[in-house]
């Protein structure tokens, strides 16, 4: 997030898109609803009628996979009606003219044809958003899990800059991260193109810095992403895979393909707290201690670093993830002799500029700084890009609309979209061990709008088959007004009816994120 969570209380308007916030980030949704009680207007633009619509001033319902079109449409109206922040554009940005050229064709009527959003509604939404200062944008994986995910994100950044809302309290472009330490994993270089602190692996100076810090020669070319590794195994290029705390058998698209790849590896090592669907395929399984059994830090979606304290001893012979890696590394001839997480954090602070001022001493004293926090006396940074973008001028991107990879047709007439529900988490490895959560959300289901259900004679609660070009699953149909006609929704937490048996592996060419939010499907009665 460019802004802290608390900033939502300062916004005049919050545009919420690609996020079912009350289910996926409930405590952030609480903040938004409290803001709404105090006068903030919520503008929800979502394919599904999410619960936040109850508190919203305006709700627009685009077809899944048409985000660039409606965002460009909003900007078209804003520019045409002279609502853009011209002073901000002149002093802080570049590339406006090229983008404005692109926006010309996204008039409300054209956008209506692509997205299904009525032209008048689009105009009203544009006026609402541009008329507010500050206005914030919050989004989640409904924006990123598309082949145009990167385009979608850039388009939202365009919108925020066009209205002068980046670098101001209560504004910003705010991705809500799905897992508790996605932010930290990215910050600390668990990415194939960057070292900790987003320092590029292809930058010779950076490479040298890490070679000195670690005392070894380092590779200069970018590595493979999660979504490239599996095809890499099948192509015989990747032979050994070490998976720590992930369950790609459930989280990745096209499960059959994932399983084939994992089985094809010469060596599969899985380190986890449970024998997950993925661990069952491993050659070696290493038992990790859970987070209450060891010390550590995590970084939340607003870049806030917090401690997780050790409450109990590790169960059985399980060990902390970092201890296992140290032991293995030392056995392979590269000594890692950290006595504690504290010592690892000292090294992190040395090589990661954003974490330069983070230390256990500060965290233990009750501080929870947001990075960038470059020095020990730096309080941390709430709002990013104040006065100036980290790259200098903010760059507008001219982005054209591109349809989703797989659209409904005669054989597969429905759009299938996937996501989260509040009482379960990710692949269910942890949350499905809770009796309370299981009682609240015991089983997989598919949301179907009552009209579509009636057309096929599907009753509420009836078990049906959902089929795509990749596979099929059987699960209960739930009649729900939340989904539009022609759209069905399946949560991905349940292994017995795993949504990702169905989803499309087509990737965003830059972010390499699969298009989990749109594919063509059909429903069949059993």
């Amino acid at each position: 997030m460019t802004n802290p969570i608390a900033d939502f209380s300062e916004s005049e308007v919050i545009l919420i898109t690609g996020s079912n916030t009350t289910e996926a980030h409930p405590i952030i949704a609480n903040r938004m609803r409290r803001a709404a009680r105090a006068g903030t207007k919520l503008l929800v633009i979502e394919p599904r009628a999410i619960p936040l619509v109850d508190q919203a001033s305006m709700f627009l319902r685009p077809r899944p996979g048409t985000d660039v079109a409606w965002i460009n449409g909003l900007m078209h109206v804003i520019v045409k009606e002279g609502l853009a922040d011209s002073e901000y554009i002149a002093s802080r940005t570049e590339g406006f003219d090229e983008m404005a050229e692109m926006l010309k064709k996204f008039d409300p009527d054209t956008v209506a044809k692509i997205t299904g959003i009525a032209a008048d509604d689009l105009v009203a939404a544009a006026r609402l958003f541009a008329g507010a200062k500050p206005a914030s944008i919050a989004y989640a994986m409904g924006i990123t899990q598309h082949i145009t995910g990167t385009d979608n994100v850039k388009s939202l950044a365009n919108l925020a800059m066009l209205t002068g809302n980046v670098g101001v309290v209560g504004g910003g472009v705010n991705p809500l991260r799905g897992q508790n330490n996605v932010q930290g994993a990215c910050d600390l270089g668990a990415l194939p193109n960057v070292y900790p602190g987003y320092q590029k692996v292809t930058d010779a100076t950076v490479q040298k810095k890490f070679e000195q810090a670690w005392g070894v020669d380092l590779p200069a070319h970018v590595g493979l992403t999660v979504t490239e590794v599996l095809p890499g195994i099948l192509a015989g290029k990747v032979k050994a895979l070490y998976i720590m705390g992930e369950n790609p058998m459930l989280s990745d698209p096209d499960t059959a393909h994932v399983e084939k790849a994992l089985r094809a590896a010469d060596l599969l090592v899985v380190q986890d707290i449970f024998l997950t669907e993925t661990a069952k395929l491993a050659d070696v399984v290493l038992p990790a201690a859970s987070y209450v059994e060891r010390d550590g830090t995590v970084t939340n979606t607003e870049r806030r670093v917090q401690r997780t304290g050790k409450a109990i001893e590790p169960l059985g012979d399980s060990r902390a993830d970092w201890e296992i890696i140290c032991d293995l590394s030392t056995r392979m001839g590269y000594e890692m002799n950290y006595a504690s997480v504290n010592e690892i954090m000292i090294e992190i602070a040395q090589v990661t500029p954003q974490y330069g001022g983070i230390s256990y001493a500060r965290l233990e004293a009750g501080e929870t700084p947001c990075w960038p926090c470059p020095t020990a006396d730096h309080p941390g940074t709430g709002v990013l890009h104040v006065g100036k973008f980290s790259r200098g001028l903010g760059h507008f991107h001219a982005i054209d609309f591109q349809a989703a990879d797989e659209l409904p047709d005669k054989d597969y007439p429905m759009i299938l979209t996937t996501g989260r529900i509040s009482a379960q988490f990710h692949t269910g490895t942890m949350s499905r061990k809770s009796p309370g959560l299981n009682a609240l959300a015991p089983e997989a289901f598919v949301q179907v709008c009552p009209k579509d259900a009636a057309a096929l004679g599907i009753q509420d609660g009836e078990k049906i088959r959902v089929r795509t070009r990749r596979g099929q699953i059987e699960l209960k149909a739930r009649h729900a007004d939340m989904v539009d006609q022609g759209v069905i929704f399946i949560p991905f937490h349940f292994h017995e009816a795993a949504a990702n048996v169905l989803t499309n592996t087509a990737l965003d060419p830059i972010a390499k994120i699969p298009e989990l939010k749109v594919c063509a499907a059909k429903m069949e009665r059993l």
Partner: protein
Amino acid sequence: MAELSLTIDGQQVAVAEGATILDAARAAGVAIPTLCHDPDLEPYGGCRLCIVKVEGMRGMPPSCITKAADGMCVTTADEEIVAARRTVMRLLLADHPNDCLSRRGNLDCELQRLAKDMGVREHGLIPLTREGSIDQSNPVFVRDMNRCVLCARCVGACEQILGLGAIHFIRRGHATEVGTFMGGDIAQSTCESCGECVVHCPTGALAFREPPPEPEKEVASVCQYCGTGCSILMGVRGGKVVRARGNPEGPVNRGNLCVKGRFGAIEYVHHPERLTTPLIRREGELQEASWDEALDLVAEKLAPHKGDAFASFSSAKVANEDNYLMQKFTRAVMGTNSVDHCARL
């Protein structure tokens, strides 16, 4: 902010403008019984247990909603005040199921504790039988309106902390109770089963189905279930994590938790399916092994695959330090940049 000076039971105290008499009393270390007052919520002033006397003011105003004023002279307890409070308490209890004061298992009931502190054992009035509704529809908590004292804390929690307002006062007079919009089951309402109202209820009216035991100590941690970063206090008893509650000092959540954080944060920790020993595949089966066997095997098998024949998936669910070491291992030991995690999924 401007400072005010007032006298509480003869003691001089200074408080900021806007403070209530109750705030001032607490600042002076003077205890006043309260029931509907909740520091997380806007003042309500419904129960009248917190009444005091203020020089120059008629009657006995509730201290939790009466603003402190400069030069005010407050008496928090005299015979008349104490008697009035006891009457309030007796009326509350007269309307309450009589198994409550003797009931075990509800040790955390604020109402019982208050009654005891005030020396009220029996209400001595003709009990008013109530036919409050009992709502069993939610799998994680029960709502028994016979035990409700209409303090409005649940309503306030859902409205002011969640901004939701799934529950309200419904009906009138003696039949008043807390219910959902159309008076139907909570499970059919907009309720999100977060349990925040249960935490704020001072009686047994809202109760978890599985009340957790009192822990011996608490350790601050962060919820695992999304990127919000809510701080959770992990309660430990007998070497086990037995309770999770929102950390009032959590910078993001200030004690608030959602359904996953509240009911799912610890349940998996001691689950029988936890892995507790390394496993090695032998003759097609995963079999138990020692750490030495497992790690030596991994080290030996990884050695020939240095470079781009190796890849690792780090994790968005483990700590920063683990992620740092996994990428360092991948780069420095295995000689490849093929380290990634499921941020994209």
